[in-house]
């Protein structure tokens, strides 16, 4: 079972991602949710998810900053940057931080597939 941590400041987006994962089933489950970067770092330590679905633009700590903190402690952690703003600069920064999978929020229906691909790659 591949467990995912959903990190997004918007309640509806977290619910949408959860429902997408749960409806897709096929060995996917939701390990937990976090509304900000700080909560996400704490949740990683507590739940040890296989993958994190991480929003970038959040109040306080951004997704990329959160990823930098997490990867510094857990370099093997798999992360999908799930953002509505995936421009070239953001992709380059994500790559530099150590994130190798990015998905636009408008392609939320492709999220299960992206999770499996990431798990297979790992």
């Amino acid at each position, binding site marked *: 079972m591949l467990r995912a941590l959903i990190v997004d400041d918007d309640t*509806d987006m977290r619910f*949408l991602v959860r*429902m997408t994962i749960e*409806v897709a089933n096929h060995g996917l489950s939701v390990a937990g949710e976090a509304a*900000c970067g700080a909560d996400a770092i704490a949740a990683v330590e507590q739940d040890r998810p296989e993958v994190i679905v991480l929003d970038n*633009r959040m109040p306080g700590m951004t997704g990329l900053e959160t990823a930098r903190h997490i990867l510094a402690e857990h370099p093997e952690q798999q992360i999908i940057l799930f953002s509505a703003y995936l421009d070239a600069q953001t992709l380059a920064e994500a790559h530099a931080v150590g994130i190798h999978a990015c998905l636009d929020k*408008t392609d939320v229906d492709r999220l299960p597939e992206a999770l499996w691909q990431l798990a297979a790659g790992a």
Partner: protein
Amino acid sequence: MAAGRGRLTPGGTAVAAALAVVLTGSALAWFISSYDEDQRETSESASAANALGTLTRWAQGITQTIAGPPESLAALQIAEIPAVIGVSAKPSVATTVVRGPLPAGLDPARVTAASRTAMEVARDTGTPQAAPLTDGFVPVVFAVLPPSRSTPGTADRRRDVTGWRIALLSPQRVLEGLPATSPAAVGLRIDGAASGDVSGPSAGTILVAGQPWQLQMARSDAPLSRGALATLAVALLGGVVCLLSDLRVQRALRVERQATAALERETRTVAELGPLLQSSLDLAEVLPAVALRLADEFALSRFSVQLVGEHGHLLEVFALGGRNPNDVEEVDVTPGNVDELPAGVAGSLPLLRAGRTIGRMCFTGHRDLGHPQLAALSAASDLIAVATYNVELFEREQASVSRLRELDQLKDAFLSTISHELRTPLTAISGFIRLLRDRWDQLREEQRKEFLERVHGNTLSLGLLVDDLLDFARLERQALNAPPSPMALDQHVAKTLAQLEPVLGTREIVAELQPVRALANAGALERVIANLLTNAAKFSPTDSRIVVSVRPDGDTATVEVADQGAGIATEDRERVFARFYRGDSDAARGTRGAGIGLSVVRELVHQMGGTVVALPNHPRGTRMVVRLPLESVTAPTATSPNGVQLQAERSST
């Protein structure tokens, strides 16, 4: 004024004029004197010739008389010959006085001894001979022969001479006997001896019995005539007058030169202030240098610059020297007002620019400041005014650039934020719709309803946001218009709360609505309540309580939204109503928002004639209090020409 090469200074001209006057006068005096001298010489020559002629004729007469027969001698009545002595050729015969008496104290033996040589010459030549001057008399000797004998030869005469007659001539009497002339004959130089005053010029020499007599004339007692002396005196007086005048002119010129030099120095100092003031836009850097120069040049004991502050009051921005406690008020020394500022009295000049007074320049002098100094200081004040104005313009421009840059950054941040705020609900709506479409059969009935509720909530949020943007755009172009009208405030608030329920999440909404009629605009009231309520939800914990109350409050109706969030810092309670302001608190950083909602709220409340304030809630959170006029108060009628009246319930569509 400096004299050029080869040119006379005014002083030199005066000296030259004085010299010319003196020289001309002297020349005239010399000419007159020369003329007078010629006249005097002519007169003296005539006098001398007259005296000499008389003396010559007298000498001839005397000689002939002495050499004549004895009877003629006896008849001699000449006063110039007081006595005649007879000396025999025979030594045994005593000397006799042929005619007398002898002058007192005169010894015949001494006369005879003094005349011995003359006696021998007279004996040998047969002509009268004069002996040297003895005791004031000249002995004139004549050798006497027997009457019947005539001996031409010397040997015969030595043998035949029986004796001698010695006539005693008084030169003093001779002089007294001369005719009166001017100048008079006053002395005789007789064969080396002197009789009378012989210091004057010689009139000539005659021979008296073979002895040379030089006639001496008196000195002329007037070397310069009165005319020459007067001319010379006038010339000298003229020269002195010229020199005195020159002294006065020189003194006046010296004073004028000193004043001119001081003025040049002061003008140069003021002229040098221009580049100095332009060297920097920092007044704190240039004003001390300017003050030192002016204080040094104009001997100022105090110098200060005052500028008009934001509230129109004069603020002293720089001062050199302490203020005199006796100073009551500065004298306005604007050119034309006064011509002089006494030492120790404080004066002031306005700093004028672009037709307005931007400050004052004040100063006190150690010495009196005259019109030229005040004019120079006035020029300095103009330069300081220009520099100050330039600094003011520069600072204003810098502030404007800074403000524009800040606004530009705010605009960028606003666009970025607002696009995110729009995209987030759109993404959620799109995702839920797609999930419903693709997974309809897999979803349970309650899940489908949940999805649709969330789609509805996001659509509502999107609508509220778009309404905010539209209102903000109207507010920016001053076209927001919300004319109030009487309404049941509690009922409208209740209606709005019902509409907003889907966006408030799990928070508990408590409505405490008392019936009250107030002046409000239905659309604007809806916008105000929606903004305050979504803000309260955004800044308060998920399961906290939000109390919405409506109540009459004295002359107003109060609508209050109280949350249990982190609250607003005291210093931010006014600023939260400014556009784009989102605060810097942890709560603000942890939420989204474009920073326009509360600015729209305040404008709408003002349009309805009310007020809105942020107050602390107890024990925590914020109370947003809106006060609106009661129905009894006359509704404001002012509307914007481009105004768009807000429509109630539009956000629910």
